[in-house]
């Protein structure tokens, strides 16, 4: 009576590689001497990400040939968009890993030991002893595993578990900043509480949809839509709750309140990682859910998504303008980007899918690069000791004069955020806005264009600050300085910058791949 499920090991290889790397990472913590732990962890993580990327590429060729298929009793769906989302995720995660692993001035961005009470004697001892919280790497690998499953999840339960697998490590990582420990711990708590809150919504949505269709497979729910009558409320509310759960993760207004605090408090490399990768994963899942389940809804959810998209674009932009902290500014700008991306979701056609893919790639490259640069800009007190990252915008004044290359790269990422032509951001915006226009949502596009214009203001303000303002010296003699990276961050920044330019100037290849992937098959 019991039939053992067939498991497609080959197709699962990307996930398995990462899961294996995460477990090995945990074992490394136990068995490798402290001195060489970090090196081993970095190598294992990098190899795993690279290997998974190779595996995804191989699966892409297989899928191109054999067409999409369902894996492990229908838990996963291996199709072109899923693989492309996974590839983007892995590329961004690899870049983010470089930043996470970097030790500018011999210090990484993480507390020597998260268990120490901030400011205690023990913490000082740990710092002097050169401890390192190398659990960061296996935790990152677990998060990437969850993210990798997320775009491919074909039933709501797998999606829910993947959501948790990607979230739990991030809650922990957010609390491990080396400096400003209190703020970091608080970010961790806020992220955790609101994340758990949102997963409760997701779960209730799942339960209602199960009640509606008697199954949690997206395909079954979609087929049930025209057949089942009398329970439309369950379907509608269930879909809305699931979407709300996902909107929390992408940071759409009004479910964005965690974003600025968490982005500011988390260690900056982690901020870059989650800002880029979580958004990719969550939008992938949102896309799959909306495109597979809701078309049958006859667009009852459209007004809801419209309002969320408009609010997200407008609130994100307006609040970004009034910020004075660099990471908070970037956080609100990422909220605004979520709004632009929602246009692609609402468009509900193939153009929307490829548009979102391109936009996410562009946004991810700029985000990882920008946060990588934020890790290098530090404040120095009167005695010349490094105090921490330069958070306040005014501390970025005059950077263009002292470190022109860094400032030019940062300006490039900002221009990409702003969507200036010849940067990747423009390609993404054009693709998504085009999809929305084709879908008939031109009022949204008008609002989006206006929001972009307003957003350009604060990006330009930062550029002005860097190039045209005299460097400021604080009253206490503190000043801003740029530390040299160990090399890894520099590599990540260069790759991001080159990618941003390439996707901006010659996007044909990327667009072609995205167009190939834009067929969602049940």
């Amino acid at each position, binding site marked *: 009576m019991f039939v053992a499920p067939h498991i497609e090991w080959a197709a699962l290889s990307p996930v398995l590689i990462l899961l294996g790397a995460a477990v090995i990472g945990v074992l490394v913590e136990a068995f490798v001497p402290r001195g060489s732990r970090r090196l081993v962890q970095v190598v294992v993580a990098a190899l795993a990400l690279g290997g998974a990327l190779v595996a995804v590429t191989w699966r892409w060729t297989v899928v191109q040939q054999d067409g999409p298929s369902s894996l492990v009793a229908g838990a996963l769906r291996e199709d072109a968009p899923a693989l492309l989302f996974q590839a983007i995720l892995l590329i961004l995660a690899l870049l983010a890993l470089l930043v996470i692993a970097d030790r500018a001035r011999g210090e990484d961005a993480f507390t020597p030991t998260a268990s120490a*009470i901030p400011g205690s004697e023990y913490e000082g001892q740990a710092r002097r002893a050169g401890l390192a919280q190398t659990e960061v790497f296996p935790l990152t690998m677990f998060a990437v595993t969850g993210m990798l499953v997320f775009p491919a999840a074909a039933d709501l339960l797998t999606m829910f578990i993947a959501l948790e697998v990607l979230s739990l490590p991030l809650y922990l990582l957010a609390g491990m900043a080396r400096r400003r420990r209190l703020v970091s*711990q608080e970010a961790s708590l*806020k992220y*955790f*509480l609101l994340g758990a809150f949102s997963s409760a919504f997701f779960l209730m949505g799942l*339960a209602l949809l*199960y009640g509606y269709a*008697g*199954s949690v497979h997206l395909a079954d729910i979609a087929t049930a839509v025209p057949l089942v009558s009398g329970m439309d409320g369950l379907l509608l509310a269930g879909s809305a709750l699931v979407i709300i759960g996902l909107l929390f993760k992408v940071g759409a207004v009004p479910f964005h309140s965690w974003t600025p605090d968490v982005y500011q408090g988390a260690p900056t490399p982690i901020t870059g990682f989650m800002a880029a990768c979580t958004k990719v994963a969550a939008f992938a899942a949102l896309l799959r859910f909306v495109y597979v389940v809701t078309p049958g809804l006859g667009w009852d959810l459209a007004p809801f998504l419209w309002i969320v998209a408009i609010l997200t674009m407008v609130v994100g932009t307006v609040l970004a303008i009034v910020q004075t902290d660099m990471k908070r500014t970037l956080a609100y700008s990422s909220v605004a980007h979520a709004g632009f991306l929602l246009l692609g979701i609402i468009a509900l056609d193939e153009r929307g899918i490829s548009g979102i893919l391109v936009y996410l790639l562009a946004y991810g490259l700029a985000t990882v690069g920008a946060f990588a640069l934020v890790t290098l800009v530090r404040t120095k007190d009167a005695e010349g000791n490094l105090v921490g990252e330069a958070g306040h915008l005014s501390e970025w004044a005059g950077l263009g004069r002292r470190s022109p290359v860094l400032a030019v790269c940062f300006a490039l990422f900002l221009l990409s955020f702003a969507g200036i032509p010849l940067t990747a951001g423009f390609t993404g915006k054009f693709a998504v806005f085009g999809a929305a226009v084709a879908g008939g949502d031109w009022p949204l596009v008008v609002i989006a264009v206006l929001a972009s214009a307003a957003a350009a203001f604060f990006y330009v303000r930062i550029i002005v600050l860097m190039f045209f303002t005299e460097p400021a010296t604080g009253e206490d003699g503190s000043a801003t300085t740029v530390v040299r990276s160990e090399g890894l961050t520099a590599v990540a920044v260069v790759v991001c910058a080159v990618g941003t330019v390439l996707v901006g100037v010659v996007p044909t290849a990327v667009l072609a791949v995205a167009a190939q992937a834009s067929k969602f098959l049940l």
Partner: protein
Amino acid sequence: MSILNYLVLSGILFAIGGTAVLVRRNAIVAFMGVELMLNAANLTLVTFARMHGDLTGQVIAFFVMVVAAAEVVIGLAIIVSIFRTRGSASLDDASLLKS
């Protein structure tokens, strides 16, 4: 008596849990609110499983318990580490992060 009653009960519990998260300032209480929401969803799942005559709902509820257990471990670890730092688990005391 119909199984609808169970659904109404779960709806009430879900709403109370959600309100607790939004209203209460103590992290532990807010977290318990989340747990209540998860349990409410479980009751819904179990009820629907009975309605459909299909055990999938129960299996999902079981998964939720596992997930919740892992979440509780992480959450409480975070809360304890914050408490050790500041001697309070109130979300109001945690107000360093202000725009």
